[in-house]
């Protein structure tokens, strides 16, 4: 280790240079980095007003995709579709003020808002609507599949858009407005862009109630659009703040750094109840759970097994474990959202009765061995492996499974679970096992078209249940062919009758989303069921600052 002084000197010089070089590199990197982060829109309001609502988001990427039109990750309230989906199979006007459909459900005519403008002052016309359809398809943008059924869009005048579909499709409005849906993109911005997948948009020119302001260092801000043609916002802007950890969001709410936290657990909500300046409300039925059967796998391919199991799901206990939501007594649709579409004849079919389940099993040729294990008609023991997915609200699935394990154990069925981290693997496992637990966003439970979940159609060659009933498929086709509401309702009832007979799935319960907000800052959050997100533009435009 002993070296001569000359070498030491050199070493020190080299070391010094290294350190300097690294420092320089870092400073340079930081410089370019911060220049990139601050893509400011100069037209924005320079004042930070106290009437800006601050909402946490859990991931930086949820608000900062800056390329790829129609991809999501855009701040709320900027882009709009033609219509907004509402409860009970109805739609609210957005860029389309009114619309009509031909009797064969093939030609859809939208009358567009006449006083709508893009944020940069260019008037919104039908050419933007036509452009959106043509451009998505011509450039193979991923979401083009949403407009798969559209043959062409025509513009008889600036404020009328006519969609001609390839086949009759009465649920077309649902298709374009339900997640992911399609928003209209500005023609004058995108028409010169040939590579939309790799184009970096920094302006986000839209037509909505909010205008993009800036995206800086963990914050994204949109400002109120004073020229908006519809209901104008009463808050001066919305700031999205990145807080990755859900519990830190609650801490920040308590400290007053943010104005609202959505999706908190019932236990956390309970403890927030006494807090000063914090109020709570619950958005009912935002998630729905079901015990689903894969009809291609034994023993779920035996109708009696499914029927028996439908009486072995203890909804009330599961619901009480959830602490929110309600047991679902219907075949698939959620009454609070689907209203008239729920067939009253099929409500309360799956009552919890283990004795009845046992009887159905033994009638169908199932037997029990000496130790009480259930044996199938072929004499072999019934064992189930239930795949679960960590990303799909593990907490809820776990609770259902813990109750099922107990009850189905009493019936002599041994159950095990395998959890998959990845959605693709999970889907594969679902296809290879007889039973799975699924959770759906409620937008898939609210009208007649939601029943297409169980159908096999040209667009949907298979469903997760491997359920393929020609009668069911034909009925659904008929629903798509007609626009007569009475007809649709009648057929929806018939579909539910078939479901209650075939039982591809047993609905379990819904869950609610609990929201906590600063009552000393804004009111007007709670708009009732269906408004499942606090960044829904309809919620944001309803907020009123508290003096």
């Amino acid at each position, binding site marked *: 280790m002993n070296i001569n002084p000359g070498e030491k000197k050199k070493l020190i010089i080299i070391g010094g240079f290294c350190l300097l070089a690294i420092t320089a590199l870092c400073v340079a990197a930081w410089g370019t980095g911060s220049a990139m982060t601050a893509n400011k829109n100069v037209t924005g309001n320079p004042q930070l007003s106290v009437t800006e609502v601050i909402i946490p988001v859990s991931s930086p990427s949820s608000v900062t995709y800056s390329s790829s039109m129609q991809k999501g990750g855009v701040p709320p309230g900027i882009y709009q579709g033609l219509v907004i989906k509402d409860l009970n199979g109805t739609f609210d006007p957005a860029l389309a003020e009114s619309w009509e459909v031909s009797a064969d459900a093939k030609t859809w005519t939208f009358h567009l808002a006449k006083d709508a403008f893009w944020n940069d002052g260019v008037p919104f016309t039908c050419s933007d609507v036509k452009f959106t359809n043509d451009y998505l398809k011509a450039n193979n943008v991923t979401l083009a599949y949403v407009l798969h059924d559209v043959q062409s869009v025509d513009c008889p005048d600036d404020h009328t858009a006519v969609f001609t579909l390839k086949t009759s499709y009465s649920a077309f409005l649902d298709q374009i407005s339900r997640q992911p849906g399609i928003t209209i993109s500005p023609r004058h911005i995108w028409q010169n862009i040939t590579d939309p997948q790799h184009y970096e948009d920094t302006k986000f020119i839209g037509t909505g109630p909010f205008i993009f302001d800036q995206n800086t260092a963990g914050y994204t801000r949109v400002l109120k659009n004073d020229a908006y043609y519809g209901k104008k916002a009463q808050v001066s802007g919305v700031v999205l703040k990145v807080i990755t950890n859900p*519990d830190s969001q609650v801490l920040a709410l308590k400290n007053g750094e943010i104005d609202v936290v959505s999706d908190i657990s019932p*236990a956390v909500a309970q403890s927030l109840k006494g807090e000063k300046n914090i109020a709570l409300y619950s958005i009912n039925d935002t998630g729905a759970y079901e015990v689903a059967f894969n009809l291609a796998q034994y023993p779920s391919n035996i109708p009696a097994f499914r029927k028996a199991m439908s009486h072995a799901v203890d909804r009330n206990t599961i619901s009480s474990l959830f602490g929110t939501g309600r047991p679902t007594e219907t075949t698939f649709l959620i009454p609070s959202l689907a209203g008239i579409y729920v067939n009253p004849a099929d409500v309360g079919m799956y009552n919890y009765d283990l004795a009845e389940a046992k009887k159905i099993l033994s009638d169908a040729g199932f037997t029990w061995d000496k130790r009480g294990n259930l044996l199938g008609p072929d004499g072999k023991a019934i064992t189930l492996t239930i795949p679960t997915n960590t990303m799909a609200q593990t907490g809820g699935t776990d609770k259902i499974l813990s109750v099922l394990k107990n009850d189905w154990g009493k019936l002599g069925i041994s159950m095990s679970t395998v959890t998959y*981290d990845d959605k693709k693997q999970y889907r594969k496992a679902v296809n290879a096992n007889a039973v799975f637990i699924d959770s759906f966003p409620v937008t898939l439970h609210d009208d007649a078209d939601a029943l297409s979940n169980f159908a096999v159609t040209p667009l949907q060659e298979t469903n997760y249940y491997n359920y393929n009933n020609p009668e069911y498929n034909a009925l659904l086709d008929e629903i798509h062919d007609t626009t007569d509401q009475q007809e649709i309702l009648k057929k929806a009832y018939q579909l539910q009758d078939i479901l209650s007979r075939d039982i591809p799935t047993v609905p379990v319960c819904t869950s609610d989303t609990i929201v906590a907000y600063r009552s000393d800052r804004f009111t007007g959050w709670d708009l009732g069921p269906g408004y499942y997100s606090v960044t829904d533009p309809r919620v944001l435009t309803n907020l009123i600052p508290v003096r």
Partner: protein
Amino acid sequence: MTRNILLLLSVAILCMYFAIAACAPFIAPYTASEITGAPLQPPGNGHLFGTNQVGQDIFSQLVYGAQITLVFGFGSALLSVAISTWAGTVLGYYGGRVDEVVCRILDVMMPIPTFPLLIVLTAFFNPGVIQVSILMGVLGSIHGIRLIRAPALSLSQTPFVEGAKSIGASDFHIISRHILPNLMPIVTTKFVSSSQHYLVMGVGLSFIGLWDTMTVDWGSMIQNAYAYGALSLGLWWWILPPGIAVVGISLALALAGYSLEEIFNPRVGVNRI
């Protein structure tokens, strides 16, 4: 003197952890994933540390979590040290072509960043603590082989090994009687320090949700507590027990490592990055 006492103390603590892990089914009132009642209950009513956000018993999770954490920490360290000792000794003792080729391969493999690689590999084996431990052991041994090979090389050139060779002792005899015993201090120290390193890393990865999210271990317990209300609601009985458990074993291993190092070789430090 104090070093010996510290060493004994840390070994005692480690034994305690192992005992808890081994007797988990007898100590824990519930299984780790069983839902035992209402969520977020405070301690009491048969729940020593209350329940977590889904209603699982925190104490039972803590006890069962010891198994996973210890398997990963010690399993991968054991494998890594076993491979590096075997390969290092053989290479150092025999030398020659094979040695040269293996050294070249190691030279190429050395710079591969193991940490990100580990994270990606866990995606393949999920759930699979055992598989990930094995992979980690194998990956970690790349760095260990060099560490063992150098002293093995110099040992095989010492007069007493030369002497043993000249009187016709078998290679196996020489390695097992003369070389391995002299390597033991460095091997033991390396084992203890790698166990601590892997253990803390496993818990950390599990905490950020990148490592086997299915099994209950201390990292995922801390993550649950941290994400679902322990901090904002001040539920210290939820977040502190797994944290203290990790700190305890990590501290015991660190103390054991440093004490061993001082006892075996008071003057030379082992670079552990």
